[in-house]
């Protein structure tokens, strides 16, 4: 396999129960020969024990024991497969009660969302919810798989119906790239191999689409942002005066000699070197992990952000955020939480709930300011010190936050800065 240019693509799958999500993932793994023999044998045995005919592909994505016993999946699970073109990471985010929380989690790092629709039922409430969350999390590409085409005689009408229903409601959402593929996960049509039953469909099968989709422009290449994770001070022979700022480029490109500003202090300097274990670089871009040294001695630490002087992020203690509540304990009014944003950490207070989105109707409600598990609300946050951020739509790394409840240390909310 040629690995030099192969990229990593992360995708998440969404669908309501029984739309065929597990079968689809099983099919992708099986047809791309990513299932090992010993796993296959164990799945065959389980299929037989449960009285299934042949092998139940859905079993491959079964997770922990409780879930196996209850026959349900409840948390995000990650799967991997590689083809000669790409490496894939699947965030498998199953349905049920905590759906929003799971899908938001899986969607946060995804390049692509695959949304399943049962061809017999067409677009349902759940589908709208999934598309909404995908657009809220700004997943750059959405693929709607119209599944179970075998149960509608592989007719083009059923497929076209789903497209028009989908486009009708999704025009309101910010979705950059959306495609539709008619498939049968059970029989394999248009998953890895082109369907022989649907010659009216001219597009590519799902796997080919995933393998060739253009994703390198999904990253923000304009706004150079470098959150400092830690400072490297080797204090050993050859590096006695070395002071390197270690971090991962969040977005944009940094080059030697660039005029930079350190936020929030506002000190300016120039990039003296971009260092890695493998040698010095001329330039670095997202998502590279590097160390930067500067021409001047400036006091910089974790939580600071190095940016190019001609392009600075917003700096404010007040911001509007779309917040998704992830915890069983509801938000306490005006309570303080720890906020984590890039490498920066401080305290924040939810000042006001502006509105809540009814996930069923996708309408906003202003008469309810409680924040419970799975709620999505627009809120105003106030932090103790200024935060350096970009809006999430432009920058998924510098526009995202989590809230932590200090009394439990649990992550209770995820937020996208508007």
């Amino acid at each position, binding site marked *: 396999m040629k690995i030099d240019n*192969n990229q990593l693509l992360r995708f998440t799958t969404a669908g309501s129960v029984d739309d065929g999500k597990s079968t689809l993932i099983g099919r992708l793994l099986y047809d791309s020969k990513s299932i090992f023999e010993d796993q296959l044998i164990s799945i065959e045995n389980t299929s037989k024990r449960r009285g299934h005919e042949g092998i139940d592909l859905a079993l491959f994505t079964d997770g922990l024991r409780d879930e196996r016993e209850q026959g349900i999946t409840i948390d995000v699970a990650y799967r991997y497969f*590689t083809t000669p073109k790409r490496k894939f990471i699947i965030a498998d985010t199953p349905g049920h009660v905590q759906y929003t929380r799971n899908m938001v989690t899986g969607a946060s790092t995804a390049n692509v969302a695959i949304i399943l629709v049962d061809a017999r039922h067409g677009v349902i409430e759940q589908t709208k919810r999934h598309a909404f969350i995908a657009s809220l999390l700004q997943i750059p590409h959405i693929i709607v798989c119209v599944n179970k085409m075998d149960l509608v005689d592989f007719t083009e009408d059923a497929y076209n119906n789903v497209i028009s229903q989908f486009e009708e409601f999704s025009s309101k959402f910010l979705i950059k790239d959306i495609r539709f593929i008619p498939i049968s996960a059970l029989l394999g049509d248009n998953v890895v191999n082109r369907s022989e039953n649907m010659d009216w469909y001219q597009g590519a099968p799902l796997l080919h689409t995933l393998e060739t989709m253009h994703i390198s422009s999904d990253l923000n290449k304009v706004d150079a942002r470098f959150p400092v994770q830690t400072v490297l001070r080797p204090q050993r022979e050859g590096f006695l005066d*070395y002071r390197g700022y270690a971090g991962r480029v969040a977005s944009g490109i940094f080059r030697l000699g660039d005029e930079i500003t350190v936020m929030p202090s506002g000190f300016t300097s120039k990039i003296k070197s971009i*260092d890695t274990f493998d040698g010095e670089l001329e330039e670095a871009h997202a998502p590279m992990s590097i160390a930067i040294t500067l021409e001047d001695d400036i006091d910089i630490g974790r939580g600071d952000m190095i940016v190019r002087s001609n392009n600075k992020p917003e700096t404010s203690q007040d911001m509007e955020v779309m917040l998704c509540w992830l915890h069983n304990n509801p938000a306490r009014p005006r309570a303080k939480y720890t906020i984590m944003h890039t490498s920066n950490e401080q305290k924040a207070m939810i000042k006001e709930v502006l509105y809540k989105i009814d996930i069923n109707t996708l309408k906003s409600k202003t008469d309810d300011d409680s924040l419970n598990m799975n709620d999505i609300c627009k809120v105003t946050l106030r932090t103790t010190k200024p935060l350096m951020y970009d809006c999430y739509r432009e920058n998924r790394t510098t526009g995202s936050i989590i809230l932590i409840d200090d009394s439990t*240390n649990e992550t209770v909310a995820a937020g996208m800065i508007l």
Partner: protein
Amino acid sequence: MSKYYLNYLDELEAEAIYVLREVWAQFQKPVILFSGGKDSIVVTHLAQKAFYPSKIPFPLMHVDTGHNFPETIKFRDDLINSLGVELLVGSVQDSIDQGRVAEERGKHATRNALQITTLLDAIENNKIDCAIGGGRRDEEKARAKERFFSHRDEFGQWDPKNQRPELWNIFNGKYFEGEHFRVFPISNWTEMDVWNYIKREKIEIPSLYYAHIREVVWRSNSWIPYSEFTVLEENEAVLSKKIRFRTLGDITITGGIESEADTLEKIVDEVSAMRNTERGNRSDDKRSESAMEDRKRQGYF
């Protein structure tokens, strides 16, 4: 012309380095759990990159079952010397001698379960708040839902149903006194990725991974090395075979496969043609379908 994207190995490397730096920034006393196996060797290599030009700023910790491949110990000591980092050792033999655990008996006895106590004792005694491991989500079903930052309660236990959601690349490493974290920087790597990376980076690994002639016994569908700890059953014979190991652990249960792969190139080719998962050769995972999950809950690696 420069391209402004990374290939997948570079992206996995950048992610792992980011995670390791988060560990250093968020925890007081982290360690790398070092088994001498290829995954912990890769994690150590990544840590070297993460903190360069500084040395790795935390110790390596080895949970020593006492049933070692001599090659593993030599490899470990050489690596420690060349990196100039501290080594901590938790000894299962000590745990047995102190009566903390009792040795299993019988043909299938292993010290695998015993490691849990030794590990948790070592974590407590050394006040370790974060143990960095080489676990990967592709290894086993139970690991597929594991987080990068995995919280352990004061009994060292993992609660798979109550994990903190992990979004974007923001890691919440907050804990109360007595609790700790396990962190898995190569969560998103597969066995194939690890081998390709070892090959690309020319990382030194123990000779045991290369095909070599060895005295072995056929047990639980793989070639178990014949060693001073082997108790032969009546119908078992010691044979001489050309084998190599896909994972390294306790010498009494680590099974090898017959192989001619004596170079990294050949190993990578062999692994990519492989029809079985690497854990398929470890008898400890075969006991029941939920074996790994049970051990993980109790605080296994």
